[in-house]
């Protein structure tokens, strides 16, 4: 059931001070529009990468929408995250076409290489590994998406190489 998506614990240290003023233009834009809850949450997630606890409170206070309603929506949809994620989100497709073309191997290999389980973030906070259901590129199965980039016809080792290349680039960036 969809509600099972609620993460059992939300670590408070993850919720460090966020700049809530960034929300102002967003709230201004959607404040009195009907059907605004989802765009507000999508906007907040766009800003912070996830929806911080204080953001819920601020949105509720300033729009008059009940906190429970906002939280209810946020926990219903797979898109919304309540805790921070890595810089790059690796979405491994587990749709039908990818499943019959061994998508499990892709996730297994990445879990192994990144030393995380599905849904977790690496220690260096660079990657979060996720499973999704169909990216619409089934003809290139098995497929994964990192950022806006889609990678098709993967093998386990191919997927690991792509991720490692990104990590190397990030390291070089950090050193410069």
């Amino acid at each position, binding site marked *: *059931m*969809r*509600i*099972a998506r609620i993460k059992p614990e939300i670590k408070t240290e993850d919720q460090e001070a966020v700049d809530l003023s960034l929300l102002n233009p967003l709230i201004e834009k959607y404040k009195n529009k*009907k*059907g*605004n*809850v*989802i*765009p507000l*949450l*999508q906007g907040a997630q766009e800003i912070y990468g996830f929806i911080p606890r204080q953001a819920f409170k601020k949105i509720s206070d300033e729009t008059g929408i009940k906190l429970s309603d906002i939280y*209810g*929506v946020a926990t*219903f*949809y*797979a*898109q*919304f995250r309540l805790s921070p994620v890595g810089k790059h989100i690796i979405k491994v497709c*587990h*749709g*039908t*076409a990818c*499943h*019959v*073309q061994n998508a499990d*191997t892709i996730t*297994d*290999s990445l879990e192994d290489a990144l030393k995380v389980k599905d849904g977790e973030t690496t220690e260096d906070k660079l990657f979060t590994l996720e499973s*999704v*259901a*169909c*990216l*619409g*590129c*089934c*003809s*290139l*199965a098995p*497929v994964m998406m990192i950022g*806006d980039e*889609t*990678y*098709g016809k993967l093998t*386990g080792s191919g997927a690991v190489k792509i991720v490692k290349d990104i990590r190397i680039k990030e390291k070089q960036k950090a050193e410069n």
Partner: protein
Amino acid sequence: MANTQVIVGLGSCGIAAGAKKTYEKIRSLQEAENLTFDLKQTSCVGMCYREPLVEVIDETGSYLYGDIDENKAVEILDKHLGQHSPVKDYVVQTDLFETSDNDFLKNQVKVVLRNCGYMNPESIEEYETREGYKAIRKIANEKLEQTAIIQEILDSGLRGRGGAGFPTGMKWKFAYNNESDDKYIVCNADEGDPGAFMDRSVLEGDPHAVIEGMIIGAYATGANHGVIYCRAEYPLAIKRLNIALDQARKKGYLGNDIMGMKGFSFDLFVKEGAGAFVCGEETALMASIEGKRGMPTKRPPFPAESGLWKKPTNINNVETYANVPWIILNGAGAYNKYGTEKSKGTKVFALAGKINRSGLVEVPMGMTIHDVIFKLGGGIIGNKKFKAVQMGGPSGGCIPEYLSNTIVDYDSVNATGAIMGSGGMIVMDESTCMVDVAKFFIDFTQKESCGKCTFCRVGTKRMLEILNRITEGNGAEGDIEKLEELAYQIRDNSLCGLGQTAPNPVLTTIKYFRDEYEAHIRDKKCPSMVCKQLLTYTVDEEKCTGCMVCLKNCPVDAISGERKQPHVIDQESCIKCGLCYTKCKFDAIVLS
């Protein structure tokens, strides 16, 4: 003389295959060497299996090149454009000579996909030159009545392409008959069926056709507001829709008194989904647009009476709308000459899985499944044995090879226990385990159930547990019967289509592949060698190099052996995790 055109396919599938790099290479060469040709972009023609695709149109005709990476692009520019000698080996489609894939497009009838891959989807002018917005113009010029348009759609026999196949004209009539100051028209672009990508291709390749279809629908039903609900996983589709909407507004196809039709005002916007399969169900979709949790509600009232914001609402699928301008322009008779008695026109299918040519095809209703897979799809990868095709996604079922002479129309597919669905066809060969496939779908519906109905929420979970047990070798006699009983209960006691159809993948696999279930339960064997826990792992002494990788990875130390000596697996302690198999670089671990 017109310039030679070089057109690169930049749909999501093309981009994923590297088409952007190909495009950039061509662009930079053109710039560097000052070459005179028109570089253009288009979307996907359906030959996803040949992406990146580059079409060259010169004074002799059109040449579609397939699998074009940067190097091949350079070669084509040099030989074809420079020396006027096409690189025949790379041509996959042309009218000028025989190629490997000429038959792919030849056996299709393109109505919905009439523009996909043939024009730049980001250019309203190109759409207009391909008869775009001509249908709405015709309505304005000939002052066609709303009822006349509804009648035309009724006569065409068009049925909803979102899955259920409800006659579109009837739906429009209901919405038309309900008086209200505000009416809505909604396009369902949620495309949640994992393994289907028709709607994405249409939205990316021909967004204006969907918009024009919606404008016609709005005029016919009397709607003044429109919403396209598109899943967020399709960023390129959303981008192109928004570009198209801006262009249509500027040209007066949207707005007030459209095309001079006094009193016909209509505008529409794109609403992004937030990731929930159940939101494809129409009442849940409307709840989601209203900003609520996407939970289905009871019908009646039907959307046509009380839909979005409690106003009369008409909801159709992407492909349904894309048909509409063509029908208005060419007439119901031109459309219903294709198809079977009860299923008219054409249908787009997304071919994927173990098939050689995976991509998009559009065929007249009534073609056999076998022809779709073998004539168009080019058969099974590696000439393996075709086992089954899954149609209808989580609501559908698996049609076995021996029924592949079934024709594609709503009623014939329903008779097999599967459904036509939105048009996904996942082809499976002998290496696909049908119990595993059933488990895959139940796992999916179990996760996606909104939780409102007990049978859907708990029943799917119980089914999943039984299927897990069976695939792990702990199945017991009576499990099949338990699955069936649960299936009927879930089907009969669920509120929405998700629950009502969730058992279909299990029921059809039991019906056609009962022996596979029995092999798992009685013999603890997976005949297709997919279910890890039912396999035996041994080392092929010939191939083993003694690299010790498997030994180091085995979580229970079941492997022994010396460096450079063949290793041995102790079957008693092996827990069948499969790690050694994935780790061995020399294919020395044998499954049986």
